[in-house]
Structure formats: structure tokens, C-alpha cells
């Protein structure tokens, strides 16, 4: 009897082992037509299941897909509740912070085997660094990268009234910080208080290459390109420790004291700056692609301007002729698969098919939606491009990054105003001054404890300090006090983590 029992136990163990071995194998594809995938994405204004892109993707991949979107408000909480509540999504397209949260919860499925079996195009289309950043210490991949489509864009720049500048005797668009200052002074001397000389919005600051209190095109002239920067010797330093920080603040204070800045800067929004610039009240305004898209047509109609009357000021060089502007290489979105997904193989296969058909899905068909120009760049055909591919951005889960970097500018080109600025700033800088672009050494850094805990509050205190100096309630002489407070509030701990990461990368 005992022998029989032992035999039964051994059989049961063997069976369990066989089952576990079998389950460790890569799941088989069910294939298009046999499964309806469920894909969750970020908040969007249109009906994602009634959009023309649904049929286009079905045509390219054969898969039926049901799409869902997160709300605009409380998206993180909603996502967590959905996942904890047993949501049966097959693909979840999230931002970096949401991905980190899901990782910390242990909710994601390792994708190595699935990618090897069904996602070769996705694997080949992204850098080893990107894959490493989405992996754990054991090399298990937990996300599919969708990188920011243009790794070297001067996204924040200044738009200006070139007609008014010429009338004031300015002969060329400023390219250095000294020329920029002289330009502002000349405009003030010529126009007095008739115009706001230089306007910009106050934006709640955020770390890295996001919103700053200081215009980035000015900061780059002082050697500042991010909140955390890396010296040649690998040491990590904060923006306030940069040699150019105090001169930069003094420069901005000088502009403010001399009446060259918009007195409403601290309360301006993007909308009010656009309003001042497009109604002819401001001569120079901090802007971006979205900004010029609305201000340019308004200036043309309300002020009878042409493209020749509008100029763009890019990354300014410092007095020593140097300029440092951070590359925009970053995760745009990350696609991941929940442990509970029953269609993981098909989800990866579907994403891979989308990458294979990237040009068709994101840009369209040559001769119908676009043509190639003399330089080999994609020229969209409007309005069909906008009407049939305008919303494709929401449906992207993964890209062949090098290919998409070439394809993506066509999406800007569908707007003349955006393209004019992109051409004058980013394309020109890439062609003529590529040395100004500095890599973001922390793009692929995994989440770390002190950074997550302290960095946002450190940056908030930096923002407050800059505003206090600009408004005159503090002076730049208080920088040492600020630095001391900063160190006591987690600054040194974050630095230690970042330096450890830089060392680990060098190994």
C-alpha cells in the first residue's frame, strides 16, 4: 500500500513537472480571426473603436482588436484598480511612471521568449539600451519601448516678429546670448513700451527635459541642459552647481530689471502668450510647435504677416561660443502585457505585425497619402493624410525606431506653420551645429528609491528659488543657503544613486 502511495506521489510530481515544463514553453499563436485582442491606451478625445485606424490596423495585421482608454483624470488610480480588479487586457500602453508602478506590483509578464518567438521586428527596431531599461536585474524584459519619435529636437524655442525686428535695425536673427540681449535692448530703445519685448509662459516645472521656469534656449547658452548633468569625469552635478547657473539667473534678472521681460511672465499661460504674440502685442515669445501652429495663422490673418515676417530663435550660444541642448531621446510610451493575459503570444505577434507595416499604418500609401521629395523626405498629401492617418499616433505600441525617426517628421510637415519652425530650428541645428546636442545619460535609468522619493520636491524648491530671485525677494547670494537646504533634503542621496548608475554604465 505504501509502495502504491509512493508511486502515486512520484507520478503526481512528475505530472506537475511536465505541466510546469509545458507551461514554460512559449504559448502557441491562436492567430488572426481566432482571437479578439483587448488593448488599453491613454486618454484620447475621439471614439477609439469607431476610428478609421481600427480598419487600417485590421487590414495590416488581420487581428480584431477592442480598444479601451484611460480617463483624463485619475488615470494612474484607474489603471491600478483595473489591473487589481482582474482586467483582461492583452496589451496595456502606458507612460513610464505607470509602467514602473505596474512593475513594482509584479503585474507584468516577462516577454523574452515571446519576443524571441513572435517579436523579432520589435526587438531589432530598438536599441539594446532601451531593452535593458525595461528589464529587471535578471534580464527579463517587461515592456516594449515606443521611443520619442525624434531623438534630437529643439522642442522649445522662441518665435519672433522679424518684420518689427528689422524695422528696429536688427540685421539678423540672434544666435548668441549677447546678440539676443542686444536685440532685446534695441527693440526696447526703438519701441519703448509700445510692445512687450519678450514674453513667455510660467509653467509648473518638472524634472529632466520637461518644463522649466527658464527658457531652455537661454539656459543652453550657460551650459545648462537638465536638472541633473554629468561632467566629463563622470561626476554628477545639479543645475544649481553648474558654473553657468548664477550668471544665467543674473542675466534673467537683468532682463527683468531693464523691462525687457513681459511683466506678466509669472502669471502667463501658453494660451495668454499665444494671445499676446498673435494679436501683435509681443515681439518675441517662447513657443513650441503647438504654439506656432495657432499663432502663425492668426498673425497672418489679423496682422497681415507672411512667413517672411516671422522668425525663429533656436538654441543660443554662450559668450564662449558653446551651447548644450539635451537630446530628446526618451520613452514616449511603453507597451506591456499583464501576467493574466491569455493572448500574450498573439499580442506580441500583433505588435510585431504593426511594426512590419509601420509605414502603411502610421504614414500611409505612397502616392495616396504621401510622396517623397527631392531630399528623400516624406511629403504628406493633405487633406487625405490628416483625414486617414492623423490619429495613428494613439494606436502605436512599438516602432522600428530608426525608421520612425525618418517617417515621423512628415506628421509635422502636414502643418506649414509647424514645419517652418521645425525646419528653421531643429533641422538647421542638426545639420549645422550637431555638437550642441548632449545625450541624456539618465534616459534609460531604472527607477531608484531616492530619486523617486526626493527629486520632484528638489526640483520644486529649485523652481521656487528661481522665482524668488527673479521677483527680488531673494538674491543669487542666497544660492549657498539653497544649496545647503537642497543637500539636506535628499539632494546628496539622489546624487549618490545617479553616480552609481553612471559608474554601472561605464562597466
Amino acid at each position, binding site marked *: 500500500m505504501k509502495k502504491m502511495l509512493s508511486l502515486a506521489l512520484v507520478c503526481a510530481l512528475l505530472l506537475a513537472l511536465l505541466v510546469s515544463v509545458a507551461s514554460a514553453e512559449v504559448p502557441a499563436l491562436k492567430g488572426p480571426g481566432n482571437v479578439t485582442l483587448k488593448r*488599453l491606451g491613454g*486618454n*484620447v*478625445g*475621439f*471614439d*477609439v*473603436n*469607431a476610428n478609421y485606424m481600427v480598419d487600417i490596423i485590421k487590414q495590416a495585421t488581420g487581428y480584431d482588436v*477592442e*480598444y*479601451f*482608454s*484611460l*480617463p*483624463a*483624470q*485619475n488615470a494612474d488610480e*484607474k489603471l491600478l*484598480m*483595473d489591473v487589481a*480588479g*482582474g*482586467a483582461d487586457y492583452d496589451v496595456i500602453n502606458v507612460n513610464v511612471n505607470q509602467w514602473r508602478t505596474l512593475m513594482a506590483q509584479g503585474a507584468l509578464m516577462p516577454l523574452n521568449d515571446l519576443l524571441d518567438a513572435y517579436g523579432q521586428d520589435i526587438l531589432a527596431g530598438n536599441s539594446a539600451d532601451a531593452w535593458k531599461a525595461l528589464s529587471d536585474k535578471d534580464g527579463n524584459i517587461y515592456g516594449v519601448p515606443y521611443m520619442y519619435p525624434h531623438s534630437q529636437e529643439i522642442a522649445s524655442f522662441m518665435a519672433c516678429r522679424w518684420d518689427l525686428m528689422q524695422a528696429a535695425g536688427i540685421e539678423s536673427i540672434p544666435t548668441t546670448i549677447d546678440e539676443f540681449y542686444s536685440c532685446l535692448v534695441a527693440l526696447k530703445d526703438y519701441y519703448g513700451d509700445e510692445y512687450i519685448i519678450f514674453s513667455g509662459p510660467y509653467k509648473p516645472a518638472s524634472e529632466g527635459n520637461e518644463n522649466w521656469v527658464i527658457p531652455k534656449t537661454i539656459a543652453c547658452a550657460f551650459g545648462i541642459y537638465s536638472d541633473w548633468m554629468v561632467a566629463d569625469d563622470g561626476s554628477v552635478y545639479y543645475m544649481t552647481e553648474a558654473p553657468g547657473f548664477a550668471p544665467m539667473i543674473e542675466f534673467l534678472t537683468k532682463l527683468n530689471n531693464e523691462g525687457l521681460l513681459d511683466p506678466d511672465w509669472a502669471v502667463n499661460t501658453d*494660451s*495668454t502668450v*499665444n*494671445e*499676446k504674440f*498673435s*494679436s*501683435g502685442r509681443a515681439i518675441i515669445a517662447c513657443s513650441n510647435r*503647438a504654439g506656432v*501652429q*495657432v*499663432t*502663425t*495663422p*492668426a498673425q*497672418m*490673418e*489679423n496682422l497681415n504677416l507672411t512667413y517672411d515676417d516671422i522668425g525663429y530663435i533656436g538654441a543660443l550660444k554662450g559668450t564662449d561660443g558653446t551651447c548644450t541642448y539635451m537630446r530628446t531621446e526618451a520613452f514616449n510610451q511603453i507597451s506591456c502585457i499583464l501576467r493574466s493575459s491569455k493572448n500574450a503570444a498573439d499580442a506580441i505577434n500583433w505588435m510585431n505585425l504593426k511594426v512590419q507595416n509601420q509605414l502603411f499604418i502610421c504614414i500611409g500609401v505612397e502616392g495616396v497619402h504621401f510622396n517623397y521629395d527631392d531630399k528623400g523626405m516624406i511629403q*504628406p498629401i*493633405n*487633406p487625405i*493624410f*490628416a*483625414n486617414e492617418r*492623423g*490619429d495613428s*499616433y494613439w494606436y502605436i505600441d512599438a516602432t522600428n525606431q530608426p525608421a520612425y525617426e525618418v517617417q515621423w517628421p512628415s506628421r509635422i510637415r*502636414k*502643418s*506649414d*506653420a509647424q514645419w517652418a519652425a521645425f525646419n528653421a530650428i531643429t533641422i538647421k541645428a542638426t545639420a549645422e551645429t550637431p555638437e550642441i546636442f548632449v545625450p541624456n545619460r539618465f534616459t534609460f535609468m531604472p527607477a531608484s528609491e531616492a530619486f523617486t522619493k526626493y527629486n520632484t520636491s528638489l526640483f520644486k524648491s529649485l523652481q521656487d528659488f528661481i522665482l524668488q530671485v527673479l521677483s527680488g525677494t531673494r538674491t543669487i547670494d542666497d544660492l549657498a543657503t539653497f544649496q545647503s537646504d537642497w543637500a539636506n533634503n535628499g539632494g546628496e542621496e539622489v546624487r549618490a544613486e545617479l553616480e552609481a548608475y553612471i559608474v554601472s554604465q561605464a562597466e
Partner: protein
Amino acid sequence: MTGSKKTITNKIPLGKSERITVVIANIVLTIFGLIAIFPCLHVVSKAFSLGTRVTAGQVLFWPNGFQLETVNYILTKTSFFTALKNSLIVFALGTFISMITTITTAYPLSKPAFKGRKVISLLYVISMVFFGGIIPAYMVIRTIGIYNTYWACIMPFAIVQFNMFIVKNYFEGLPESIEESAKIDGAGDIRTLVSIVCPMSKPVLATISLLYAITYWNNYFHVMMYTNSTEMRTVQLYLYDIINNGQSFAENLYSGMYSGGVSISPNVTTDGMVAAAVTMSLIPIIALYPFVQRFMIQGITIGSVKG
């Protein structure tokens, strides 16, 4: 003599100081009314103004360069009608269900003969004071399988305890003898409720149904938490999404307004689109308001009288 007819009126003539008070009150209220209506006019004006004028801040309280493209875009290219349909379904079905549950709960609880009514009433009071929390509520919605359905938008308000107590109190104030007469004539409980009690309670039922209707129409949070598809969005969620995504909408339309590579003035901008969405969403409420205004005033006062 003709033209010297004296009309007899019951009005007591106002004294001089009272007339001054009335005049001042009218002036002050007119100012407040204008203060309230100017922002609305501003939004409506932006919805119908040229996009370039909206961007340049040249629109105040009247459309500057009238155009209908923005409104047309909102109506035809976004899911406005889907959202409106969803809102109307939730609003109508929800109000109906809530009234059924409220009346059928309030009626037995209003009867002293109903055993255990104090305990049951106490349970309602407890659930009114202490909310279980959003996560348990979310789990209940998922577990019973109504997530991402109309029921998920309706069930959280199927019965609002406060409304139920108002109705219960009203029922308690009705003369018992009328119900006894009905029973003598052979009416059962349901017949008595439907044919006798409800018709006698029209004022309170009209007011409570209005309160429910407003709750369903304005509900944002529960629809956000308990649905995950754009097809299930109600008007409130739709509006938030349009505001959040106005830029990407305007981008696509903007490029569509190019002709031969030369930009022509685009009429639709982010601000204009948001204004148009808000304007369109207001129309159903503005259309309904004159008919329900009377009940709204009752609704404000009924709690203080009966509650």
C-alpha cells in the same frame, strides 16, 4: 367718462423705503445676473468665432467673424452624439429605476405596522453616513459583472438614502384613512401605492425625480471609474476628454484646412473647440430648464420643510 377705469387689486401699496429696496434689489440682482451670464456669452461667442480671432484674444461677448465649422466638427467628427445618447439613457433609465426603488422602499418604511422598520431605517442611515469606499465599490461593480455597462453608471445611485427619507416622511404625512378606504374597496398594497399614494404625492415625487435626474446628468466620477471605453462616455466625460485632447483634435483639423501647401485661416483651434463642446453640451440642459425650474425651487426647500 372713458379711460378712467379703476382696477381693484389686492396688492398692498409699497412704502417709499420699500420701493427703494425693491429698486436696489432689482439693480443688484441684474448685475449679478449679468456677471453670471457674461462668461457663458464669452464661451458661446468663442464657439462661433474665427479661430484666428479666438487665438488672438479678440472675442469677448459676441462672435468675431461668425463661422460654424467648429460646431460642425464637434457634432460630426467627435463622439458628441454617442456621449449625448449615453447621458440620456443613464439619465432617463437611472431616474426611472431610482424612483421605483425609492418609492418601494419608502412606502413600507412609512408604515408603523411594518415590523423591523426601525432597524432597516437605521441601516439606511448608517449607509448614508458611512461610505464603504471607492475600491470596495469598484470591486463590487466588477464582481457582479456590470463594469463598463450602463448599469455601472446607474446602480451607485439606484437609491439615495436622503431622497428616500424625504419621500418616506411625505408618505407618513398622508391621511391613513384614505388608504383604509381603498383597502375596504378591495385594493391591495401595490394598487394602493400606485393608485392612491403616488398620485397624492406628486409634488414630492416630481422634486425627487428631478434631484435624481440632475445627479445622473452631472455624474462624472462614477462613470469615469466604472467604464473604460470611449463608447460608454457620457457628456461630462466627453467634455473633459475634449478639453484634455483639444490640441490633438485641432492639429488634425488644422492640417486638413491646407490648400495647395499654402495655409489658409483655420477656424478651429483648441480653445474654440472646447468652447463649442461646452456650448453644445449645455443645449439639452438649457432646453429642459424652463420646464423643471418650478420643481428645482421646490427641491431646494423641501429638505428644510420635510427633512
